[in-house]
Structure formats: structure tokens, C-alpha cells
């Protein structure tokens, strides 16, 4: 039991080490409010699985009924590739999918961009690999 617990703690520590390094990548922490989250519901307009970070673009219906265009970036692309066995692929998301996203908002008011922390596509929570996102 003790060995198993020690092994589990070591694995968690390893993940934390990876996560803290990745969150600091490319000036992430000075661009987004990493201590605050917002949750948005919308419709995917584009899924761009490219470097240096995959990006999801989606429309959120505003109070006036008009769509507000939003974008969200994810952890570094290499952490989300097939060989990392995240549990999904670049084909997992497509335009027209329903999205519920929890993310760190930008520091600049008026910029509809955020850093994804949790992602639900068509009612299914998607694992996001490393970088501090959900790890299912």
C-alpha cells in the first residue's frame, strides 16, 4: 500500500512539474488572468490544431441576440498530439459543435480571447493533456 501511494504521489508530482512549466510558456501568465475563470456556451466556428497552441474559435450569443466572436487557446501543441495519448485527436472537434468552455479571461478588457481550462464538446468533457487543463 505504501509503495503504491508513494508511486501515485510521485506521478502526481511529475504532472505538477510538467504543468507549472507549461503554464508559464510564451508569456501565458502575463497575458491572461490565471487566478480567474469564466464559463462560456457557444457554437464552434473553427478548430485550428496548429502551432504553437491549438485554438478554438466559437460564437457566443449575446444579450442582444447577436453572436460575439470568441477565441481560446490551449496548452502547447506537442502536449496534445496523438503520441501523447491525450485521448482524442484533431478530428474530435468540428465547426457546428456545441461548446461549453471554462477559461482564464484576458487581462485586456474587450479582447474576446481566453486560455482554456476545461472543455465540453457536445456534452462530452474532453481531456486536455498537460498544461494545467483537465486531465481525464
Amino acid at each position, binding site marked *: 500500500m505504501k509503495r503504491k501511494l508513494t508511486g501515485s504521489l510521485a506521478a502526481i508530482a511529475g504532472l505538477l512539474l*510538467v504543468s507549472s512549466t507549461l503554464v508559464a510558456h510564451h508569456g501565458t501568465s502575463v497575458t491572461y488572468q490565471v487566478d480567474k475563470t469564466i464559463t462560456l456556451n457557444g457554437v464552434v466556428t473553427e478548430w485550428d490544431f496548429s*502551432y504553437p497552441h491549438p485554438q478554438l474559435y466559437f460564437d457566443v450569443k449575446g444579450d442582444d441576440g447577436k453572436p460575439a466572436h470568441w477565441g481560446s487557446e490551449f496548452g502547447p501543441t506537442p502536449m496534445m498530439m496523438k503520441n501523447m495519448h491525450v485521448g482524442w485527436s484533431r478530428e474530435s472537434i468540428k465547426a457546428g459543435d456545441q461548446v461549453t468552455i471554462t477559461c482564464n479571461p*484576458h487581462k485586456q478588457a474587450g479582447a474576446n480571447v481566453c486560455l482554456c481550462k476545461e472543455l465540453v464538446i457536445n456534452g462530452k468533457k474532453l481531456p486536455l493533456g498537460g498544461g494545467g487543463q483537465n486531465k481525464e
Partner: protein
Amino acid sequence: MRRVLVGSLVALAGAVVFSSVMLAQTAEPSAAAKSGSSAPFDPHDISGVWYRTSPIQTFSAVPNVQPGLPRTIEGGRGRGANLVEAPFTPAGKAAYDKNKPGYGPRASPPAFGNDPMGTCDPLGIPRQLNAEVGSSHQTWEIQMTKDRIFQFFQWHHDWREVWTDGRSLPKTDDLEPKWDGYSVGHWDGNTFVVDSVGFDDRTWLDKFGYAHTEQMKLQERYRRLDHDTLELTMTLTDPEYYTKPWVSDTKIFKLNFSPVKEFPTGEPKIKNWDEQVYCAPSEEYRFNQRVRDGAGGKSTQ
């Protein structure tokens, strides 16, 4: 009496040699014993994929380096331990101030920065030796050939060569500046010493934006401590920017190491440093224009 004593000593020496030979023949190392830090190794073989486990991602352990970064499994020097600022000249400090990084105590949103990484410029040497990017790219690989040693870097998919054929290091003024410089290497006992000149001054020493001139001279010293551990220290000499030679922290690298033993799906982790992580300018530009510049408050109009 003397003949008896000498004879006894010879017999004793022979017995010791015979015993050693017998032990060697009967103690064939198992497959497990051929790996791991206690396994036998050739100190003149530094080939392999080396993962940085020491904590410092900058050239050296400067103030405010990696706040909050936990100590690694190696212990390392973490935050607060003997952190010393670079020995700047006024020109060196001015060059440092002009560089706007996305990391560290002077970090600003990439939209307002000028880190060469943000425009897919080569990171160069010594920055790539810091292995600053995390996870699978916290590595570089060494391959040794008859007359050169090659170092491969997955982040930006770069490589550099170190000539080991005995040639002399050229004079800086006889070279065109190169992103990775020009390097020659030799063995000093069990330490592999690399001397380099001819650097392009557009590269940064590290992610915090320390600068250098084209006149920089760099020495790297590699030492394999055991089968699984490689140590690297660097010394740069650049009198226009630094008042004295600036010595890096001692960087520790582990062979074929990963801090994560399993993927989230439960599968065992394998080497994953072959994704060909090129920085494509078109992708970087699109990302900056559509995401980072907007998120950083910069107008995309």
C-alpha cells in the same frame, strides 16, 4: 628470507588477479544492471537523449529565476539559493533592457515583446542548451561520430555540430556570424570541453533576454557522472557586455528520463521527442494575430 617474502608477495598478487578474473567471468551483468545510475558506463561516451532535471531554465541562477518552481528530484538550487545577477557592463545592461521577454520578472505579453522565439527565429547556442521548454522538449540529444559530435534540439528542430578532428578554433573575425556559432571540442580527462566563437548577436542567452555580442566566446564542459547523469557548465566571455567571465549554474541532465511514467490513459510513457517541432512562421504569425496580439490588447486592425 627476502626471497621467501618476494615469493609470497608474488603468489598473493597472483591469487588476487585470479580471483578478480573468476569473479568477472561469473558475474555477467543482467539487463537491468546495464541501465540505471549504478550501471557501468564509458565516461567518454556522452551520447543519448538527455532530459534537464536541474531547475534553472536561464543561462544561470539569476534573481527572480523561476519563482514558484519546485525543487526537482535532483534537489537543485531552486529559488532563493545564491542567485546572482549578471556582471553587466553599462552596454550589457542597456542591451538587456532593450530585450522584452515573455518570461521572468520583466515579462510582458508577447504582443509587446521581442523574444526571437515569437517570430520563429533560431534560438541558437547557448539558449538551446538551457532546455527551457518543458515536458518532452526539456531535452536534447547527442550523437557522436568519428570527427564530430552532433547535438539535436527538438524545439525548433535544430542541430549543431562540434568538430572533434583536432582543428583549431577560428578567430571570430574570420567567421560570418552564425546562429549556433562555430564549435570545436576535445577531451580533458573525462570532461568534454567545447569552445565556440562566431555567434550571431540576434540570439538571446536565455528566455529572460540576457544579450551577447558577436565577440562572445563560450566554453561548455560536459561530464558524465554516472550511467544516467550528465553535468554541464558553461562560461561565456564577452567583455563588451559583461565585466568578467560569466559562469552558468551546474545543469544536470538524465538519460532517457521522463517525470511522467504514464500517460493519462494509463499507457506507459515512451520517448516522445520526435514530433519535429518546427516553428512555422505562418503558424506563429496567425497565432499572434488571431490570439495573442488581441489578448494582449494590441490592435489587430
